């Protein structure tokens, strides 16, 4: 309990550290946001270009409005901190409410993907693991297990592309929709039809996202089950005349305990690891928001998403350590 409290107290310090390092990293990148925006906009040259650059830089707080000198990093970090303290993380030119709405919507979209993938991974993973663990030595178990492992060893963008290719209409008929989270005109549909539309759009992204965690959970369960089936209590049950089915049910409960500690690692990685899936399936989620922010050198957006990820990961680590400790009291969270 004390350890948990201490780690909670450390969290703001860590977050501030992360914020500062992120800020520095964005600062060392040679071209700033103003330059990038000018390059993308209309071509202007000479005096007009210098003036526009100056105006944009003043707008993004990069240079001082009065003297025209570049503002030092620490000053900019300080003013960012002052605004962040009031939960105003919006980039210049956008109100805090609007940004918060956009940000929360993106986060919710990714969270929906992540939570669904987690449910699929746990359910399917435990089932697959139980099946695999009982047949680990037989050809059927080896083939299915090997195939699952091989699929999970591919980069996510390739898996997504292959799913699109074979189910999303690349070759053959389009079984499932491939782009976005809504069909055009879905707003006009009635409730249940809209839900069905959403679920159909979610199928491929969630399948891609759930693949690696499913196989990980299955492998944990299968290995645990293999060990538990050879444990003393299993032999004792067999000696007492229990049928193999009952033994397996008991053994499965033992095999499930490491899965809970796995959750702490899976939750943050699923919530934040959606950038590739969002990119492939054109979903406006948190990952794309972050990637866009980084590519456009949008300091405010990048900082906001970095810090949210950091909070998620820190809590995930804490939860996983606590769960680990609860599952195995011999584990010590901290040296004495």
């Amino acid at each position, binding site marked *: 309990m004390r350890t948990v409290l201490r780690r909670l107290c450390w969290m703001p310090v860590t977050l501030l550290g992360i914020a500062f390092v992120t800020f520095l990293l964005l600062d060392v990148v040679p071209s700033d946001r103003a330059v990038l925006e000018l390059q993308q906009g209309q071509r202007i040259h000479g005096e007009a270009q210098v003036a526009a650059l100056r105006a944009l830089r003043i707008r993004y707080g990069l240079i001082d409005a009065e003297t025209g000198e570049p503002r030092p990093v620490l000053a900019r970090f300080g003013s960012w901190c002052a605004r962040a303290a009031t939960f105003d993380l919006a980039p210049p030119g956008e109100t805090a409410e609007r940004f918060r709405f956009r940000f929360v919507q993106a986060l919710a979209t990714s969270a929906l993907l992540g939570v669904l993938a987690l449910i699929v991974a746990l359910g399917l993973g435990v089932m697959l693991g139980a099946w695999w663990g009982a047949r680990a030595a037989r050809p059927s178990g080896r083939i299915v297990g090997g195939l699952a492992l*091989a699929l999970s060893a591919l980069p996510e963008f390739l898996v997504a592309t292959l799913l699109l290719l074979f189910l999303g209409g690349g070759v053959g008929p389009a079984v499932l929709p491939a782009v976005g989270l809504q069909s055009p005109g879905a707003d006009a549909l009635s409730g249940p039809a809209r839900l069905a539309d959403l679920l159909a759009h979610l199928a491929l992204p969630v399948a891609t996202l759930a693949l690696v965690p499913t196989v990980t959970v299955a492998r944990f369960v299968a290995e645990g089950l293999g060990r538990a089936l050879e444990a003393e209590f299993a032999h004792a049950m067999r000696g007492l005349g229990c049928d193999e089915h009952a033994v397996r049910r008991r053994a499965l409960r033992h095999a499930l305990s490491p899965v809970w500690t796995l959750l702490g*690692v899976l939750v943050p990685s699923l919530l934040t690891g959606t950038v590739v899936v969002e990119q492939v399936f054109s979903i406006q989620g948190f990952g794309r928001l972050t990637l866009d922010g980084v590519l456009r050198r949008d300091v405010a957006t990048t900082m906001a998403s970095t810090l949210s990820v950091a909070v998620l990961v820190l809590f995930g680590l804490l939860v996983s350590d606590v769960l680990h400790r609860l599952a195995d009291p011999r584990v010590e969270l901290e040296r004495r």
Partner: protein
Amino acid sequence: MRRALVTLALVASAAPFLANDRPLVARIDGVWSFPCLVTDAPAPEGQTWRDAWRALPAQGGEDWIVMPPWPYGPHEICAAALAAPSRAHPLGVDDVGRDVLARLLHGARTALEVGLGVSLLAGCLGVLLGAFAGLGGRVADTLVVRAIELFTCFPGLLAVLAVATLVGGSTTTIVVVLGAVAWTAFARIVRGELLSLRERPYVVAARDLGSGPIQLLVRHVAPTLRGPVLATAAFVAAEAILVEATLTFLGLGAGLGTVSWGALLDQGRAHAAEGAWHLWLFPGLAVAGTVLALHSSGRSRGARSVSRGRTAGTRPLPSR
């Protein structure tokens, strides 16, 4: 599995001598040359080395050329774009017209560089810092643990972008940045093992029998640490190969000049709908095979580690 990995590493490091459009050794008009090593050695006038090599038996005479086993280079445009596998190009041709087999062999070299480089860099950093935390005092421990937390939460994507725009995207950039992010996996393992090891009866006994700290570390602790550290190295290397591919996909990769499996897979993704199945299937098999081999050798080592459960299933690198 270990043998497969060693073979792969050998093939990867010998790639320029296995697949190249320039001969290993040539003797033209009594002059010896090694065009494979000396890249500015000129080809025989008016034709490529390969054509000269093929024409030789018909000419007779004193000249001779030794070509590599696979006489196509990774950058050489040698057939119509996206041609399907044929006898001349068994794994097909990419979207520019370069031989996929040659690119796959040279890509293995990039994979080796990335995998080995990242795990070496991260391993050195992580083992040192982990040992510092596990053996030093409370202050050292707190510092390292905070650093681990900080780096675990840190967006690797941003770091890659920052460094890539500063010094230009290259394999070295990727190795350095991923190594700088992945050391936490090693540090966590080493610290945990050290904390539990120093209470072990055999270590306590050795200390009480008069072993000094260095002897203790080298003779008694290091051998037990080897297994988990090598297991982590295998997982980190596998993850690094996958992350390299993902970075290429996100447009943050090593650039067009680099031949890598990730770049091949990205080409395959772009042309998958046009029926160029060979462009994703073969690199996909190469990546999956390597990653699986690394995982399974990591697991067989991790099984021997002192405190289990932490090695298996960790995802040391972000942004996959």
